[in-house]
């Protein structure tokens, strides 16, 4: 970082404090262009998970993972893994369902409650699904 930018950044901090005295500090950086959206500064948690079969232990692709009460949904990839962003709530119930019929095997729907009372920003989970035996 060159010295002139460093000076500007120091000046930014001073101005931010001065603006906050006049209730302007939030609007200084929270802006939006006419054809754009609001900025996003919320905290949320990244949940990563892996879904496997109870019978074979193999990962199951294309399983729908839904956290209905917080309006989020995703699907497992070829490795049975999923990534989901969720708000910083404490408890999530993940509903898992096999939506592709017999492709990739057949499994009963299930659920898993995830506790984030520590308000972590990353969580990892493993879910086992019970296979439907013919």
């Amino acid at each position, binding site marked *: 970082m060159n010295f*002139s*930018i460093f000076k*500007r*950044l120091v*000046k*930014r901090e001073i*101005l*931010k404090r*001065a*603006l906050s005295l*006049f209730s*302007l500090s*939030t*609007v*200084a*950086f929270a*802006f*939006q*262009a*006419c*054809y*754009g*959206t*609001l*900025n*996003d*500064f*919320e905290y*949320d948690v*990244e949940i990563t998970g892996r879904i496997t079969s109870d019978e074979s232990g193999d990962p199951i692709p294309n399983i729908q*993972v*839904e*956290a209905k009460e*917080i*309006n*989020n*949904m*995703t*699907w497992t990839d070829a490795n049975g893994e999923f*990534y*989901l*962003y*969720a*708000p910083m709530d404490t408890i999530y119930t993940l509903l898992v369902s096999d939506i592709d019929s017999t492709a990739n095997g057949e499994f009963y729907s299930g659920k898993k409650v995830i506790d984030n009372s520590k308000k972590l920003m990353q969580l990892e989970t493993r879910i086992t699904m019970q296979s439907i035996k013919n």
Partner: protein
Amino acid sequence: MSLKKEIQKRLFSQFAKNETAIHELRYLFWECTLRCNLNCLHCGSDCTSSSSVADMPADVFLKQAEKISKTMNASVITVVITGGEPLLRKDLEQIGLALRKMGFRWSLVTNGLAYTVDRHLSLMGAGMGALTLSFDGLEDEHNWLRNSKQSFEKAQRALEVLISTPRLNFDVVTCVNPRNIDKLEEIYTFFLEKGLQAWRLFTIAPIGRAKDNSELLLNREQFTFLMEFIKKKKHEKEMYINFSCEAYVAAYETEVRDGFFFCRAGIHIGSILIDGGVSACPNIDRGFVQGNIYENDFSDIWNSKFQVMRDRSWTRTGSCANCKEYKWCKGSGMHLWKKESMELIQCHASSVFT
């Protein structure tokens, strides 16, 4: 003007000057497609349902995003995905997840026509943090401007889904025009009853398809009416209501928006356009494009170009040359300038000068 407002104004002006010198990217538009499922009368881009221009491949954009994340602070940057209608792309979720992994936040601008519950859930799961829905009035006015009989019903369905998600930084944007200006009170009540928390109003600039349609543009009286309407509703504090960033509005500054006018194009706002062009807000005259990602990296263009947006002294011409407001306005919004003639298309403030 009160002493408090005068001090605020001077402080903010110092802040804007300092931010211009730092020019830290905080808002990156990505024009991901020109395809659209509507054919709006006022569209700023000339998109069609079967645009002949191909969508930008995800990997091309993500490669640039990755380079940006290595040279800039991605955690303060919101990537705003726009079009065309971005929902016509099926890979937004994968792109969104990849952006979050690089440290960016991302958001979407949509007309709501293709916004279903399932799509909402999967976009949220992919870490979408903000969304703007276009909604231009009650049924008749909305469908007229959107040029589609079903657009109101679908936008309303999208509105209900979006309102049910408190995590989302969500707002509705309305193009105010001569057809809906007398209905603003009714539209306001409709939104309030739906539970909408943030509403932004903007006027239609004579650019894109709107430049040939005088039916869309407000006259002085209507513009003043709009300013008074927003001012009044802001005081009532039932909803977070604002005039968009689009222009300097003289005595209405801070009365119709929370802060003072500051066109951040090229200062905090950059874009990657459909053809790889690098600019700021997508509604800016394409003659002002600063480079192309197919030739140079976005970061290099951002760091070495954009002088035309960071030093606006060239705007001191025509009606701005001797304007007493120039010190605060700096020639208003960048999107209001024509590159070829370097002329201002519209001065909003002159409508409210007394």
